[in-house]
């Protein structure tokens, strides 16, 4: 088991290195003078020179890269051009809002997606199956920003049931953004649950369970669903990256004070250190969740544990 954990932990290193290279290249490969881009046409030569020196832009690229990596390892992501505050501090202040939104979306998508998938598979070909799959098709086709705006229009503007935007503390602020972010994911989960459950239901051990005279409920929930959930965990894990990316749009629509919206504002203001920091932070979160999913595999699938025990 430890060998498995170590292998997975080590695999995160090249991914994080890749993310860091990407964040670094963003500044280096941007056409034109980054200092001029960041400070604007009105900046004096003196201001430009100071920024170049501060960020090491006057040094060769390899020196800049070494400095960038060394700072990154120490958790130093530079300073925001707009606020002059450390980027890491700014991002960490917004991290809870983003994590709250992402976790709420995942929970919602699992709570909605799995039952839909189960109903759909168990009652294959029925009206319920068709409706669930229609939801699954629609859920992946709707652009998140549009869905968010429509939900806002219906539930906040017309019905007045929920606040339209912001994050003032109450759970009611979380509902619309979480639904917006979680819909696509729940559609994917519903589809995956359905197809993997249909696959599992054909297996011999399910036939045996039925032949033993077990109730359909026990057969589905204790024998079939447990095995089908493995692929569902994969989908949740693999899609967490795109869910995080969806955070960028959802937070912009609902003025949710998280890293996504902060990043969009920084892109518009050409605040490169913040954009670089946000890329690193998102990359880190995606890698951390992938790692968590891999470890979860080993917990729920004895075959993976066994592989590594034999390998020793």
């Amino acid at each position, binding site marked *: 088991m430890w060998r498995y954990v170590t292998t997975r932990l080590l695999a995160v290193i090249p991914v994080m290195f*890749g993310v860091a290279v*990407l964040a670094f290249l963003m500044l280096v490969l941007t056409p034109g003078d980054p200092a001029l881009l960041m400070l604007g046409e009105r900046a004096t030569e003196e201001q430009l020179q100071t920024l170049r020196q501060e960020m090491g832009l006057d040094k060769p690229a390899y020196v800049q890269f070494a400095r960038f990596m060394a700072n990154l390892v120490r958790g130093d992501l530079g300073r925001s051009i707009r606020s002059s505050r450390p980027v890491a501090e700014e991002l960490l202040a917004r991290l809870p809002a983003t994590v709250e939104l992402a976790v709420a979306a995942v929970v919602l998508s699992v709570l909605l997606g799995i039952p839909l998938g189960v109903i759909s598979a168990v009652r294959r070909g029925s009206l319920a199956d068709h409706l669930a799959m229609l939801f699954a098709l*629609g859920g992946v086709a709707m*652009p998140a*920003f549009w869905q968010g*705006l429509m939900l806002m229009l219906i539930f906040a503007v017309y019905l007045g049931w929920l606040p339209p935007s912001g994050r003032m503390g109450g759970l009611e602020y979380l509902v619309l953004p979480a639904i917006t972010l979680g819909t696509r994911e729940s559609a994917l989960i519903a589809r995956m649950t359905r197809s993997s459950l249909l696959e599992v239901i054909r297996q011999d051990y399910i036939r045996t369970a039925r032949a033993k005279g077990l109730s359909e409920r026990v057969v589905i929930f204790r024998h079939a669903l447990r095995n089908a959930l493995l692929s569902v965990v994969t989908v949740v894990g693999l899609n967490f990256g*795109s869910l995080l990316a969806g955070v960028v749009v959802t937070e912009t629509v609902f003025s949710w004070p998280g890293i996504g919206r902060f990043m969009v504002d920084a892109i518009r203001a050409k605040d490169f250190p913040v954009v670089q920091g946000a*890329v690193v932070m998102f*990359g880190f979160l995606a890698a951390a969740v992938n790692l968590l999913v891999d470890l979860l595999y080993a917990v729920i699938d004895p075959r993976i544990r066994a592989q590594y025990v034999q390998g020793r």
Partner: protein
Amino acid sequence: MTPVAEVSLPTSQTAPSVSFGRQALRRLLRNPGACVGLVVLTIIALAAIFAPYVATHDPLEQRLPERLQGPSPEHWLGTDDFGRDLFSRIVYGARISLRIGFTSVSIALVVGGTMGLVAAYYGGWIDHLLMRIVDILLAIPSILLAITIVTMLGPGLNNVMIAVGLATVPSYARIMRAAVLAVRESDYVQAAIAAGASDLRVMVRHILPNCMAPIIVQATLSLATAILTAAGLSFIGLGAQPPEPEWGAMAAQSRQYMRQAHHVVTFPGLAIAITVLALNLVGDGLRDALDPRLN
């Protein structure tokens, strides 16, 4: 003997591939979802091609006295905050969205496909190096990659197409590699190599045509993703710039008037959703048709 073997190869390969294609087409047309998707896509494509004839107004013409009007016989889908005809803008927007989809998928296909083909064909350290790079890129969310690339290149439609295309390169590389590995050791490929065909010829003439099924499916499905991603990027201000009638940008520009006239946001979003839905239906249908084992 050798030249005979080489000459006879394409013929022996062509015969079954044609019948397989026909079978796949028959299976595709028997799928009701895929048929609906195909019909909708055809309508959208025709509207895009014949936009100047389909549109009732100039998509950029501003008529401020007519701003934010609801649907009417004069303006079928109403007007936006500049009094521009929404129907005409959506029709022209189909051109932009389809262009985004096809251009970015072509970029991903050429770059990713070549990477996968070369990696699987040559194997060894080339394969190892390319696939490690692909693994790293795959671990980074593709829209994050796209945002990074657009930030580098600057906002704009062309840059969004490049960004969305490059961001999906890793998945194409993986799929192509897997497909090539499956046929790399086939007798007809080995025969072509033994007959002295150059690497390029073996790859392009013998391997590539037999790897197209998974790539076609991926391309159709990623057309939908590309359109969605580009619309999202336009919505946050990184994509198409005003007054271009791109669907995502249209919704973004008019969202502040949503309370007074919801149609300014509703219709462009619906256009995206319908197009993406149709592409997904066709993609799913193609996947089932090209891989009968899935049925």
